[in-house]
């Protein structure tokens, strides 16, 4: 199967700035703590927790407009390339870098993400691999470590998104405006060993979660 065209549409920038960003701000408040720690040049990896489709919009809305063209969210091919309409929207307007969650023999599922990093882009990854239970950190998959290993010069910036699981939980259709907090942490660098890197990333994310405003969701 030929891989689908993942070059963003020329209207992606306009769509993100004029539609996606105002909607994301309306729905989440887009409160950012540690904005100065966000990478503004690539190659760089942003590793965030994942509870909601809002996560991608929220992360795209916290980058300055002039950087947006270089920011590429990594998203599951089986989900986002499923139908023609969703696939077009995800590839051309959101500008996803697809990742396959089912590995064929000999295939490097990280190849599109590596290509993006090689182009000097900022890649957004959700190392949990799927939207987990709201505001809990599921076990992390090690693909992010393999990306960091392949691009040791790229900083890996941990980000904790608090509250997006309430705005649009998994399975919900109607989004409800609730303030979300994006906590940006200090960048990690590839340390040379995968388990050490993954536990460091996990610790950073847990620290950021602890510093986020409390969620009283009984």
């Amino acid at each position: 199967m030929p891989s689908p065209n993942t070059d963003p549409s020329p209207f992606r920038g306009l769509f993100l700035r004029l539609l996606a960003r105002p909607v994301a701000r309306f729905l989440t408040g887009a409160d950012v703590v540690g904005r100065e720690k966000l990478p503004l040049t690539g190659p760089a990896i942003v590793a965030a927790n994942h509870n909601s489709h809002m996560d991608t919009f929220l992360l795209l809305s916290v980058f300055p407009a002039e950087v947006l063209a270089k920011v590429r969210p990594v998203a599951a091919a089986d989900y986002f390339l499923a139908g023609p309409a969703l696939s077009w929207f995800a590839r051309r307007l959101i500008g996803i870098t697809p990742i396959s969650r089912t590995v064929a023999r000999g295939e490097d599922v990280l190849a599109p993400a590596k290509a993006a990093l090689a182009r000097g882009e900022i890649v957004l990854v959700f190392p949990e691999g799927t939207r987990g239970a709201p505001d809990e950190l599921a076990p992390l998959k090690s693909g992010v470590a393999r990306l960091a290993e392949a691009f040791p010069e790229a900083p890996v910036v941990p980000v904790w998104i608090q509250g997006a699981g309430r705005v649009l939980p998994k399975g919900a259709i109607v989004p409800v405006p609730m303030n979300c907090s994006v906590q940006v942490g200090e960048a990690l660098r590839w340390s040379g060993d995968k388990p050490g890197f993954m536990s460091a990333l996990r610790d950073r994310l847990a620290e950021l979660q602890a510093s986020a405003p409390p969620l009283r969701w009984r």
Partner: protein
Amino acid sequence: MPAPSVEIGLHLPSALAWGLGGVVGVLVLGTLAAWLAPRFKPGKDFSELRLRVWSWWVMVALVAAALVAGWPALTLLFAFVSFVALREFLSLAPIRSEDRLVVLFAYLSVPVAYGLVAADLYGIYLVAIPVWFFLITPFLMALAGQTRGYLPTVSVFNWGVVTCVYNLGVIPMLMRTPDAEAPAGAAGMVFLLLFATEANDVLQYVCGKLFGRRKILPKVSPNKTWEGFLGGWALTALLIAFLAPLFTPLALGPSVLLAVLLPLAGFAGDVTMSAVKRDLGVKDTSHFIPGHGGVLDRVDSLTFTAPLYFHVLAYYALAKY
């Protein structure tokens, strides 16, 4: 007799022009202080102070533009303020996960309340939230089928909507008073409310910094002192007593009453919201306004002073209300 006015393309009463000019003057002084402060205390970080002053400029510019542009602009501005404040409150308050859609319904109070302001339906405005919202919300919560923590959650919705929406909506409601009813027009009345409330916040803070020794409510608001409270009260009361004849149609007696009560209401709003935040376990309700915190942090006093100001004016002076 028509109010004296200056021509700046729009019909702006001169008292309002002087008032806005005075605020800009204070801001210029504040900006100079923020820029010069590092020279006198090198090594100390003043970036937060600069952000704070910069945010004041933006807020003053927005409010001034809305006051000059008229009631539709002020209605939109405060509808936005109410929405953001309510979103902050409902995001921090304990709410049951079953009530996600009730939260969405609570936001509906914003277009309803401000729509009633725009339609100039004061009588319906008065009952829309305290009667109808208060009845429909618990019913919707019952439909959600969860009775655990039911009553506390009802009170969360009621408190949030009354403070963030109902009490702030009277500000554009006041703006709908015919200009002939006040010496500096409806905009002048709204200006004095906002100016006196923010001046009270700042003066209580400054008096507390300069003279504060005895804590007034250490468990709720540890930085507040008796000296700050009393100093701010006295200075703001003088300010209101001096300015009320220029901006409101109040006679001397009601002016003095307003001068005495408004700083108390501002203090009450401030410490009440502090108690709410302390219970929720946060210092600021968000980072929406750089250097200040959340919108609700900025308007906490206003949620108490606005209804007081409106009711004193409505009872003693305004024919419309």
